[in-house]
């Protein structure tokens, strides 16, 4: 299965701003059943892109725009291939609980047991766990996580605008309403409370026509992965009460949202910011391979060097136009 993803982010400022510095975490990961076939980012104003891999293995792109601008547009395009997932067993044995030990877990797993900025144990979470009998999981961890997935799905209404990007989980817990990000944070907090390493996944969900997903199209999506020693990372989507499957496209993982926002930036200037995001996920039959690109490219003569005009002079003269 191939998907093409187009993710456009546009910041509009009410007054010119300068020195924008931005980090992007939107390159789909290439691991497991998901393989990245192509990826590119364009910005307007144009900027030189730099990249690094963060300690969660996410590809991070960053750039800056020095001069004054009133709009910043970022367009990311990706093609990924998602191969068929290995079927998940209905349950694991209850001895799985004993396997959360230092023989099976690495430092990275242990780090995902600690409270993080948005996913932590709080009185509101304690009440939620008590009300839904989530305090003492007795069945095997996979079954318990599925129950948790369904419990969150059933207990909360999906509603945009109730919570903000930086809302703590208590807000959604009190209101019993929220969006995918809140549900993921709550599920992570409960799983960690149970001693199960859990992480936040930001990515994209392909919505079939006439789908009944609660999360809307035109948006990024978020869900949870829990680590079970005998199965590895297992994805749960509490927003839609499903295990993640061939419609979930993973872009970045972290302890919670704070580690993986698709865009994070700073700028200088005083202006109101209007943010617009558009996401399109489309199945494609097959991606255009790099070799095909090369074949269709028409041979073109290289531009002639201009020896009479040294490069520096050229640049200086260009600058005089402004």
């Amino acid at each position, binding site marked *: 299965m191939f998907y093409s993803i187009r993710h456009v982010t546009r910041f509009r400022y009410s007054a010119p701003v300068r020195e924008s*510095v931005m980090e992007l975490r939107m390159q789909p990961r290439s691991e497991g059943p998901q393989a990245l076939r192509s990826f590119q980012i364009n910005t307007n104003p144009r900027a030189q892109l*730099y990249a690094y891999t963060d*300690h969660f293995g996410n590809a991070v792109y*960053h750039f800056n725009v020095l001069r004054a601008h009133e709009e910043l547009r970022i367009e990311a395009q990706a093609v990924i291939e998602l191969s068929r997932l290995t079927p998940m067993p209905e349950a694991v044995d209850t001895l799985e609980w004993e396997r959360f030990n230092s023989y099976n877990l690495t430092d990275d797993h242990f780090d995902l047991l600690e409270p993080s900025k948005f996913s932590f144990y709080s009185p509101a979470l304690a009440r939620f766990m008590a009300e839904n009998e989530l305090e003492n999981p007795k069945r095997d961890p996979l079954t318990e996580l599925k129950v948790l997935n369904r419990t969150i799905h059933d207990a909360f209404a999906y509603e945009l605008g109730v919570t903000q990007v930086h809302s703590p989980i208590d807000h959604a817990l009190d209101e019993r309403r929220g969006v995918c990000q809140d549900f993921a944070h709550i599920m992570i907090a409960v799983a960690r409370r149970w001693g199960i390493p859990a992480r936040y996944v930001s990515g994209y969900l392909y919505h079939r026509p006439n789908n009944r997903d609660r999360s809307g199209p035109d948006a990024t999506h978020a869900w949870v992965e829990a680590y079970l020693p005998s199965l590895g990372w297992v994805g749960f989507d509490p927003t839609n009460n499903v295990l993640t499957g061939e419609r979930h496209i993973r872009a970045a993982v972290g302890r919670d949202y704070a580690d993986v926002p698709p865009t994070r930036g*700073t700028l200088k200037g005083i202006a109101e910011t209007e943010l617009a995001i558009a996401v399109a996920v489309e199945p494609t039959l097959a991606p255009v391979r790099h070799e095909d690109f090369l074949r269709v490219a028409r041979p073109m003569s290289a531009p002639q060097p201009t020896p009479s005009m040294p490069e520096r002079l050229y640049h200086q003269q260009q600058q005089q136009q402004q």
Partner: protein
Amino acid sequence: MQHEAVADLLEGLTGAARPVRGAPYGNYRLGSAYDEMFDAGAAVRPHYAELDAELLTLAPDELHRRQQACELSFLHQGITFTVYSDKQATERIIPTDLLPRIVTAAEWNRIETGLKQRIEALNHFLRDIYGDGRVLKDGVLPRSMIYGSKHYRREMRGVQVPHGAYVNVCGTDLVRREDGAFVVLEDNLRVPSGVSYMLANRDVVRRAFPDLFRAMGVRPIEHYPRELLAALRALTPFQEDASIAVLTPGVFNSAYFEHAFLARQMGVELVEGCDLLVNDNVVYARTTSGLKRIDVIYRRIDDDFIDPLIFREDSSLGVPGLFNAYRAGNVVIANALGTGVADDKAVYAYVPRLIRYYLSEEPILDNVETFLCREPASLSHVLANLDKLVVKAVGESGGYGMLVGPHATKAECEAFAEKVKADPENYIAQPTIQLSTAPTFVDGGVEARHVDLRPFILNGEKTVIVPGALTRVALKRGSLVVNSSQGGGSKDTWVLSS
């Protein structure tokens, strides 16, 4: 000054206190603490003999006149520090004491080798926890202590630092126990301050006792800024051509004087965050002649504030994009980010174990005995003995968030016990330490006052310790709190060459 130095205790008023002899020592009381000048039998220790002779020959007025000259010099040079949340004045002269504190060559030798050993182990530790995490896999210290620390910077995982040296400038607080041994009270691995006072004190006290200074063979310290510059240059391949800047939070910072002083002494730029910018992953300073590339930043800003893109978004002190330039190796930041995880008061308790673990050596300098409230047995001991212990919050500094048991009321102890019980992992406790006393000029006479010792270690390509230190002194009789923010002063420290 950032860190607290001292635990505490009442002067040993337990009967042993007695005057030493006549003027100017009429009010000099020896308690149970180790005294730097007099031995237990009230005889002058040999390395203080010359100072003793000088004090006996000088008229009291003359001492007073020299003390005033010292203070005036500080005022004229503008050597001040800032006390936060003080209603009267925030900017003050740090009180400096006329009388030098003298350290013998043998004592210094031990301190120097002990500190070098310690910083080597701490650098190993930082490389490890930001690398393979061997120390955690081997269970030498609990994982939650690292992952739970607010100073642990996951962003530093896998980032290479030059020479593997995370701590390029370290100020370690030492105190002398009753038995005369120097022990480590605290490692300051983030942005330790005080070195400018070390240099300023030397400047004025040398002039107050010119003959004595010459006669005693005091080792020089004036080359500290040069050594610092060399250490910073050695962090880049450019050496002499490296472009260096001191990054200060600004004029309202308590150590701003020091930042300006060091920049001037080294002949490098003094910049605030807004003077720097990152373009195409390279750091530049805005200067009157355009943008100038910066290769090394000696930063005196905490990690949290250094880059709003990566750390605290609300920081107006930092430079957006700085961390990514640093990660790419386009700029060096000294000290490296994330060093605070190793000077955490809870990790402190493990340093002797870390020395054995990484170096297979016995620690040369001991720690002060420390109880970790995270360990249930220690917690019950601490709660039962609150009135005898000093309890500190793990992440705080500068004497804030601590309880000095022997000086606290019952109500204060009880209130603090609740805090400790609510969050035991955040607290440690230490016995009240009798800091050593040193002769100090007070009210026209010489009296004993408690002191600590903060030497400064430079580490990079090699480790250099300038033979001197900031000696902080609690000017109130009996007080053990030497923090400048809490009424402490400072003394010149004379390390003898033989």
